């Protein structure tokens, strides 16, 4: 177990270094000069030279990379060119919003996807199964940005059901900042107005973002349930007269859940980066929008910061999933896994 964890952490660090090199190189071969964007085409040559110097943009690229990595060791991600403040501060500002949105989305997709998949498998070929399969098929085929537009037009503009943008209603003060997650903070501080408002604000974007993973989870759950239920030990359980409930939940589910768990882990990573599109549509103040704007500005310290952070969360999520395998299947021995 220990060896496994250490090995995984070592690989994660290696991977982050690789990613940092790729992103750094990419952002530095980009034609364009962020200083000129800041000035919108104005300014004198001396002023531009001075601003470049202030930002350290006139050093050779490998030197800039080492300076960056030196900072990174001290958790200093440099200063954003666009927002003119520490990237760490920006990330602290925007990441909780994205984290809340994607976590809510993955929870929503687990709550919806797993029962859907099980039902679909248990009642194979019934109308329910057909409906669930169509729902999942649309989910894996739907352009997220298009779905977002439709949801907003329908629920906000036509039905006046749900708000369309931001994290909380304007006149409800956001809860005191403890975790940065409005839903959690408002519960901790017992601020129920804030809780309701944030809940209503998160539903549309979270559903939009999570539809794809809901569908993937449901599909995976269905097919692995079907596979498990076809196996001999389940058939013989039936013949022993065990109740259907017991068979489905105790025996079949536990075994069928492992492949689904992998999908959940993978989905979580893609949710974080899928947030780029969802946040743009729902004016959600998270890192997705932050990274798009930074990219347009060629603000590479910001782009680097976001990329590294997402990659880190992604690997941690997958590590967590790997650890969960053991919980569902005690036969797994970690030190044998590569």
């Amino acid at each position, binding site marked *: 177990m220990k060896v496994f964890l250490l090995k995984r952490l070592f*690989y994660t660090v*290696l*991977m982050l270094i*690789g*990613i940092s090199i*790729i*992103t750094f190189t*990419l*952002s530095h*071969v*980009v*034609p364009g000069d962020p200083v000129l964007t800041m000035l919108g085409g104005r300014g004198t040559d001396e002023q531009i030279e001075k601003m470049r110097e202030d930002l350290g943009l006139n050093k050779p690229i490998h030197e800039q990379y080492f300076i960056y990595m030196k900072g990174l060791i001290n958790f200093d991600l440099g200063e954003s060119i666009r927002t003119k403040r520490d990237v760490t501060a920006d990330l602290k500002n925007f990441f909780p919003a994205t984290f809340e949105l994607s976590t809510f989305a993955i929870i929503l997709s687990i709550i919806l996807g797993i029962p859907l998949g099980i039902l679909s498998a248990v009642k194979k070929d019934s109308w329910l199964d057909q409906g669930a399969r169509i729902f999942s*098929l*649309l989910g*894996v*085929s*739907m*352009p*997220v*940005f*298009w779905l977002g*537009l*439709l949801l*907003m*037009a329908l629920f906000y*503009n036509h039905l006046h059901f749900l708000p369309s943008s931001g994290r909380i209603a304007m006149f409800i003060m956001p809860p005191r900042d403890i975790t940065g997650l409005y839903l959690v903070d408002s519960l901790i501080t017992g601020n129920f107005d804030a809780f309701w408002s944030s809940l209503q604000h998160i539903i549309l974007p979270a559903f939009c973002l999570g539809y794809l993973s809901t569908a993937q989870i449901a599909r995976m759950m269905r097919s692995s349930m079907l*596979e498990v239920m076809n196996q001999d030990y389940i058939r013989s359980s039936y013949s022993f007269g065990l109740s259907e409930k017991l068979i489905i939940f105790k025996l079949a589910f536990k075994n069928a859940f492992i492949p689904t768990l992998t999908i959940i882990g993978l989905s979580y*990573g*893609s949710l*974080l*980066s*899928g947030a*780029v*599109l969802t946040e*743009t*549509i729902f004016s959600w103040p998270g890192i997705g929008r932050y*990274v*798009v704007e930074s*990219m*347009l500005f*060629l603000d590479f310290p910001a*782009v680097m910061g*976001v*990329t590294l952070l*997402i*990659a880190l969360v*992604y*690997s941690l999520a*997958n590590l967590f999933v790997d650890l969960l395998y053991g919980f569902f299947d005690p036969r797994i021995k970690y030190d044998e896994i*590569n």
Partner: protein
Amino acid sequence: METTDTLIDSWLKKHESKIKEFKYTLHLISKSPLSMIGAFIIACFLLIAVFAPFLAPHDPYYQEMSARLEAPSFQHPLGTDDMGRDILSRIIYGSRISVLIGIIVVSIGAAIGIIVGAVSGYIGGAGDNILMRIADMFLSFPPLILAMAIAAALGPNLRNTIIAIALVRWPVYARLVRSQVLSIKNSQFIEAIRSMGGSDIRILFIHILPNCLSPIIVRATMDLGTVILAAAGLSFIGFGAQPPLPEWGAMVSDGRQYIVSEWWVAAFPGLAILFVVVGFNILGDGLRDVLDPRLRR
């Protein structure tokens, strides 16, 4: 004449079992309603792409400034966009862009992935470890962000969109092929060939890879949908196809400010994306059911 016939005959004889297998597969596919629906959608889509100039009622680039944002009518069945262009014609021509992106990206991605995966799985050891770590790195890279960075670095256009997405997709194939190679590599059948003195390259390309073909085909079919979605997403946020190209994602993006009032500008291109991706996914599902030996009972 006779010689060719004998050639063909001997070829047929040699590959008799494989041809039988292939015929059986085709038979299974044609018996699977799911695959047929998918195949039908994709066939329509391909036909539209090929015959776009004959099907489009208008020039997809022709702007009529005085006819901006017109509702669907007899003359413009799906309305006009923000530049007064016929949306139906643009969707029809846009299918060509989507086919192009889908096919090229999947071919590049699969080609890189197959080579890396096959080599990695076959050589094993440290080389395998390094290659797979690299693949993992690309997998854990936030895909849209990597694609955005590449598009920003190389300049936003169709070619770079293709490169960007292909770079994000190849590890999927690499892992798939590697696991297949691993499972076949140590089988008795390969052992036998090796003991008869077959070279590594020969074993890999003649004996191992063809046996991995079906999962690759299934994966690639489903991937075509994913790739089309990814390209549309990139264009939507402005890192993909450039105006005035009728790329579907870019068309949705053009229409997003009109979603409430002139809904047709964004709705129809989005629907087109949905249809095609649904088509590839159904076809992929169907093919998997047919080709996956575990499900073939």
